[in-house]
Every structure is written in structure tokens, then in C-alpha cells.
């Protein structure tokens, strides 16, 4: 195969993975990783809307300082459930289960993941966990905060802790099986010539994510089981009145939940690497540094969980260690940001929708990351803990970071997934609306938090109202902005322009097969002789920035 421009894509086939078989059973019993990715896409979008509805209720309540929209107990349930749905049922699976499932076999030149039936099983497990959690929410909800701190959650709360915990526990297996599948696939199923350091960085970051999934998720699994055990049997595992230690729960909980945030952001970083390199038509700056940084983030991410326990009876000496390590974990992330920026330098950038999301990511993730450093400083954290500063920090990473990467990747690979192009004008417009709405929502929260507004309160002193009004206004714009892609993606499946195999004219292996691909991905096993981001010398490219036609 020749690299880049001179490559002739095969003609679009009549039979692709979407129309290869018809009928509900062929989708619900599929072993094709691409179909499973679409099953996930539909489910996580559903859960995202539910989580979004809870967000809407939060922002409506916080428009006024009085707690006049919801009762405090109801409000506790609303923010708890917003967190649980968004974290466990949207963010953690989002990129790996949709884009990862779809692209990993294609990017390594394989016909499928190593264990296709386990892949399907992991979707069913995800759905089972989701159904149980939704049942718990409808039956009465849970009000402990998504962090389930004991002994409130284990002894004193009268809400559906065990049922919700069961749903999350089951969902964890979905995560574990996905990570297991990815690791084995990347180790054993790379096409001839696809060496580790020829792999796109998307694969490196998913490999690192999978490491976290398999090493961390089991710990939250046992933690939830112990919590349920304490609640049902009324023993003193984490209850101090019966001899237990509530801080032990927090240690066990955060041992997973901190690395979990890297599960949420690493895949997004992988997408950003793809977008930055490909939409500036330049090889990524410092490929191996970015690759190793992904692994470093996964490893270091496990060493910092105690920074969530700074204001507990955790020893201050342990706190100092965790604080130092939390600074260290910022380094590989910063390396990535530097490398992306250096990639952009003197490149030929095209401002298509995916690139807009990527550029947004770099700025917003940097803000989120730097505010994380404030929180990592022991003394400052005492002031900022449990305020809206923390809320703003993690939303900058989760929404400004992870969600931007997800949306950018969805746009970028949409032609490959669906065989259609989304409308570019609407794409750019909604990206800008989302960017503006997002910042208007969360920037005021930094200020409010610094000035002392506590989180998880449904009523607050009136001096914070101006920030909350701005925030709710921003949330409305953000919500509107996110509805637009939901509409035009669906629209494009019927009316969008047909996409050729390589609509962006890029060297990646996934672009060397038709859009949408056949079920077996490639008509014959590719032999890879080129590096991940090998572009033609710029002199040979005819028009800079307008290569879409």
C-alpha cells in the first residue's frame, strides 16, 4: 500500500456492516465490534440525556438563593443521580465503548476484537446495570452523593443505596471486560508491520485506559459489596459506632475513583492527538513522549487518591505524599499539551468541526488541569474543598475535556461510521455555541467557589446569586448547543452527503477501507509499512486547508 494522497480507495461496496444483515436479532446478537459500538452509542446517548435532565433541575433550583424549587432531600437525590449517571453510565464508557470499539480493530488492521462475544456481553452487562440503576432512581432514588460516603450511606440514609450500588457494581464488569478485550487485542492482533510505535496515539491512550479499567474497577467492586454488606447485615465495616473506620471506605472508594477520571479523559486525549495531527496535516510532535505520557498518566493516576481525603482524619504526612504525587501526575498531561501545541506550530491547520473541538479541548483542559493543581496543594484545598471551585474544576476536565474529545471524535469518524457527512456549517456553529455555553456555565463557578459557596447545597446566601444566574444561563446555551448535533447526526443518516472512503484525505489505516466498512473491515489483511502520521511533503499538497472537496 502506498502512503497518503496517491492512494486509491476501493469503490464503496454495496454490502457494508450496516446492511449486511437486517432485523433486530442481527443487531442484538451481533458479534461485529462496529455494530456493538453503535449499540453503545444509542445507550450512552440515552443516559446522557437522563443525566442532563438532572443537571437541568440542579441549575433551575440554583437560579434563586432560596430552596424553592426542590426540597433539600430531593435536591440531594438530584445531584447524586446526576453524578452517578454521568460518570458511570456516560463518561466512563463513552469513548472506549463507542469510538474505541469501532476503531481499535480497524486501526490495527484486524477483523474484530480478540473476544467478540465478550464484547457483546459487556454491552448487555452495561444495560443490566443501567436498568437496575434506573429502577433504583424511579423507586425513590439515592441521596448520598455519588461518592457514597459512610456511615451515612451504610447506616443512616433511607434511600436506595444497595440497589444503586448493585447497578454500578454490575456496570463495572462491563468496564472490566472492555478493558480486557482491548489489552489482549492490541497485544495479539496487530496486522503485519504494525509495530507498537507505529500505532496511532488513539491506541496508546486506549491501552493505557484499559490498564486503569482492569486494575482499578475491581477495587470499587469490592467496596460497593462491602458497603452493601454493612447496610444489609448491620455490621461495622465502615461504621465507627460498631468498630469500623469510615476513612477506610474513602481510601477504597477513591483508589478507583481517582484513576476513573483518567479513564474518562485519556481516551479523549487519544482522540485529540488524532485530531491535532490530522487536521494540521503534520506529524505529531514527540510521538513517543505522548505515547509514554499516556502510560505515565495511567500509572501515576493510581498514586494520588489521598488528595480527596485532605480534609478527613487522614494523616497529614500521608497528605503531603499525596499532594506531591498529585503535582507529579500533572506532568505527563502537560507534556501532552505542549506536544499538541508544538504540532500546531507551522502546520497547515484546517478549522473543520473536529479541529474546533480539539482546539477547545486544549484550552479548557489546561484550565481544568491547572485548577487541579490548586486543589492538589494541601493548604489551599482546605479552603476550596467542598466548594463550587471543585465542581468547576472537574467539569472543565469532564465536559471541557472528555466531552469535547468525544464530540470531536464523533464528528471526525462519522463518515467512516455512517458513510455520510454531517453538515459542516452546523457542525462549526454548534461547536462554538457549546464552547461559549460551557464557559459561561462553569467559569462563574470557580469564582463562586473561591468566594465560599459550598457544593451540594440547594439554598445559598444571596451574594452568590449572580454567579448562579450566569451559570444557569450558560447551561441553557450549552444544552441548546448539544441538541444541534443530536439532530443533524440523525438527519445525516438519511440526507447527509455520501462519504467516500477517505473524505479527509488522511494516512490512517481506518481510512483505507470503504465508508461504511464491510463487516470484516478489510478485504485482505493489510501490511503496514508507514508510520502513524506520515503526511506528504507540504509542497505536494495542492490547496492548504480546503481538502474536503
Amino acid at each position, binding site marked *: 500500500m502506498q502512503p497518503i494522497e496517491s492512494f486509491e480507495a476501493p469503490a464503496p461496496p454495496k454490502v457494508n456492516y450496516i446492511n449486511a444483515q437486517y432485523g433486530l436479532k442481527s443487531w442484538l446478537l451481533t458479534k461485529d465490534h462496529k455494530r456493538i459500538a453503535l449499540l453503545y452509542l444509542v445507550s450512552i446517548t440515552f443516559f446522557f440525556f437522563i443525566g442532563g435532565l438532572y443537571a437541568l433541575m440542579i441549575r433551575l433550583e440554583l437560579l434563586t438563593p432560596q430552596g424553592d424549587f426542590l426540597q433539600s432531600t430531593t435536591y440531594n437525590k438530584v445531584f447524586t443521580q446526576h453524578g452517578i449517571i454521568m460518570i458511570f453510565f456516560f463518561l466512563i464508557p463513552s469513548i472506549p465503548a463507542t469510538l474505541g470499539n469501532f476503531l481499535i480493530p480497524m486501526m490495527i488492521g*484486524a*477483523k*474484530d*476484537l*480478540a*473476544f*467478540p462475544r465478550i464484547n457483546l456481553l459487556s454491552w448487555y452487562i452495561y444495560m443490566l446495570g443501567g436498568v437496575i440503576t434506573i429502577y433504583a432512581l424511579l423507586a425513590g432514588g439515592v441521596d448520598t452523593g455519588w461518592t457514597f460516603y459512610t456511615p451515612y450511606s451504610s447506616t443512616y440514609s433511607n434511600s436506595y443505596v444497595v440497589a444503586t450500588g448493585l447497578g454500578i457494581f454490575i456496570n463495572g464488569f462491563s468496564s*472490566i471486560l472492555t478493558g*480486557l*478485550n482491548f*489489552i*489482549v*487485542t492490541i*497485544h*495479539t*492482533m496487530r496486522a503485519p508491520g504494525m509495530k507498537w510505535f507505529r500505532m496511532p496515539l488513539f491506541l496508546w491512550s486506549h491501552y493505557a485506559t484499559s490498564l486503569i479499567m*482492569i*486494575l*482499578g*474497577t*475491581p*477495587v470499587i*467492586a*469490592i*467496596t460497593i*459489596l*462491602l458497603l452493601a*454488606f454493612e447496610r*444489609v*447485615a*448491620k*455490621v*461495622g*465495616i465502615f461504621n465507627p459506632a*460498631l*468498630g*469500623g*473506620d469510615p476513612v*477506610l471506605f474513602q*481510601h*477504597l472508594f477513591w*483508589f478507583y475513583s481517582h484513576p476513573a477520571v483518567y479513564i474518562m479523559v485519556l481516551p479523549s486525549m487519544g482522540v485529540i492527538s488524532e485530531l491535532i495531527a490530522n487536521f494540521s496535516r503534520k506529524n505529531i510532535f514527540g510521538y513517543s513522549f505522548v505515547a509514554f505520557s499516556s502510560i505515565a498518566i495511567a500509572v501515576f493516576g493510581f498514586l494520588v487518591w489521598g488528595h480527596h481525603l485532605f480534609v478527613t482524619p487522614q494523616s497529614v504526612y500521608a497528605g503531603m505524599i499525596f499532594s506531591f504525587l498529585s503535582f507529579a501526575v500533572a506532568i505527563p498531561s502537560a507534556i501532552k499539551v505542549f506536544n499538541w501545541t508544538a504540532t500546531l506550530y507551522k502546520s497547515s491547520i484546517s478549522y473543520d468541526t473536529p479541529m474546533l473541538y480539539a482546539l477547545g479541548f486544549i484550552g479548557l483542559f489546561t484550565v481544568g488541569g491547572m485548577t487541579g493543581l490548586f486543589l492538589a496543594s494541601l493548604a489551599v484545598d482546605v479552603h476550596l474543598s467542598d466548594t463550587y471551585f471543585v465542581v468547576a474544576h472537574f467539569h472543565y476536565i469532564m465536559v471541557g475535556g472528555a466531552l469535547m474529545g468525544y464530540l470531536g471524535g464523533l464528528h471526525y469518524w462519522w463518515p467512516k461510521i455512517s458513510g455520510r457527512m454531517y453538515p459542516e456549517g452546523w457542525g462549526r456553529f454548534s461547536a462554538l455555541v457549546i464552547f461559549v455555553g460551557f464557559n459561561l456555565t462553569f467559569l462563574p463557578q470557580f469564582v463562586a467557589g473561591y468566594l465560599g459557596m459550598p457544593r451540594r447545597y440547594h439554598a445559598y446566601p444571596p451574594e452568590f446569586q449572580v454567579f448562579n444566574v450566569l451559570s444557569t444561563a450558560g447551561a441553557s446555551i450549552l444544552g441548546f448547543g448539544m441538541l444541534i448535533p443530536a439532530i443533524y447526526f440523525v438527519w445525516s443518516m438519511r440526507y447527509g452527503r455520501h462519504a467516500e472512503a477517505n473524505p479527509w484525505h488522511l494516512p490512517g489505516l481506518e481510512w483505507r477501507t470503504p465508508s461504511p466498512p464491510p463487516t470484516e473491515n478489510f478485504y485482505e*489483511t493489510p501490511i503496514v509499512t508507514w508510520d502513524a502520521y506520515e503526511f506528504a511533503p507540504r509542497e505536494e499538497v495542492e490547496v492548504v486547508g480546503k481538502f474536503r472537496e
Partner: protein
Amino acid sequence: MTTHATTQDAHGHPALQHHFENMEQQREAGTLGMWVFLVTEIMFFGGMFLAYTLYRNQYPAAFASASNHLDITLGAVNTAVLIVSSFTMALAVYFTQTGKLRPQVLCLGLTLVLGLTFLGIKAVEYHDKYEDHLIPGRLIPWNPFNPGVQEEGQPVDHHKLHLLSGKTVKHPIDATVKNVEMFYWIYFAMTGMHALHMIIGAGLLMYLLIFSLRGRFDPEYHSPVEVIGLYWHFVDIVWIFLFPLLYLLGRHYLHG
């Protein structure tokens, strides 16, 4: 016994799945997959071992007292049972690799029987705890945790923990040692989770037995036997650590 003859057709071994290039790749992926899964199991049990470490450090006397009242004979027998079952499992893999069907089936059957023996002995132990009111908390609502009272007329002696056999009052716990319940929830959580894994293992062994009898496995394709063997050995290893940590604390106080 004849070895299973493989029929080679244009697509290779009949057990070759469509997305793999050859049997070697499939076998490698299967083995690697099981090892990655065992990593998750190590971290899963690791959380409970951490809780054990912390609470044993915090309540050494309670742990020693309660551990002393576990039946060391049953525990040691169970340990031996699992070790033999690991041996028979390893032999089962060997006989599959060398294509000897009857010994293969025999060893798989022995492994299963030994596993069920382990579970049976565990059931006996759990029943004893039920009789002695040592199920933690209100897990059994009509039989709450109640370490029992000190026998009448007997002085409390922290250094000589008496083990009584007999049907009525089996093993009275020294009730002045606080937080004995902490030991028992850990005991039930860890051995219960271990027993659950044994049950799953028994199910997997039954699957292996059935398919072995159908001649599914041969020297070219026996990956399921191998990877289920890995799982079985892992469950054995967990017990190898559980036994001394749960059963052998404070035994030396008897002769102190």
C-alpha cells in the same frame, strides 16, 4: 483411548474463530485474556486483604480470640483438598496436551469432586457458626450475632482460650474481648467470596467435563482446559493465603 482426530478443512481447525489468523494466535489471546482477568481478581481480593490488615492491626486480641475458635482441622483439611485439586487440574491439562482422553476426564472429574468437597466442608463450618450465633450483625435476622456468655463458674483467661467440643455449647467465645464481630464479618466476606469463586469454578469444570466427553479438546485445541486451569489455581492460591490469616492466629496462645 484414541486421541481426537482433527479434521483439517480449508479454514483450518474447526475450533478456529473467524477473526483469528491461526490457532496459535487464538491460544495466545485466550491465555493472555485469562491472565488479565486474574489481575482483576487479585485487585478484587486485595481490597478485602487490605481491610483485614487494618482491622487485625487495630483489634489484635479480638482477632486472635476469634480465629482460635475456627476449626483448624477442617481448615487444614480444606487446604489439603484444594492443593490436591490443583494437582489433579494440572494433570488434566497434561493429559489433554498429550491426547489421553480417559485420564484427562478422570482428572477433571477428580478436580470437580475435590472442589465440591471443599464446598461441603465449608458448609459444615458455616453451619457451626450458625449454631454458635456467630453470623455477623443481622445477616440472619432471626439469629443475630451473639458470641455467647462466659460459661458459669469459669474464670476469664485471655491466655488460654478453651476449645470445647460437644453439641450444645460448641465453642464459647471469650465475650470480654471486644470487636470479635469485626473478625467474623471479614471471615464471612473473604471465605464467602472465595466460596463463590469455587462455585463458579465448579460450573466451569462441569462444562469442561461435558465437552471433554464429547471429544472437543485435543492436543491442537485445549485452550479452555488451560485457561480454566489457570482460574482454578488462582482460587487455590487465594485460599493458601486465607488459611493462615484466618485460621492460624493466636494458636500459640494455647501453649503460652
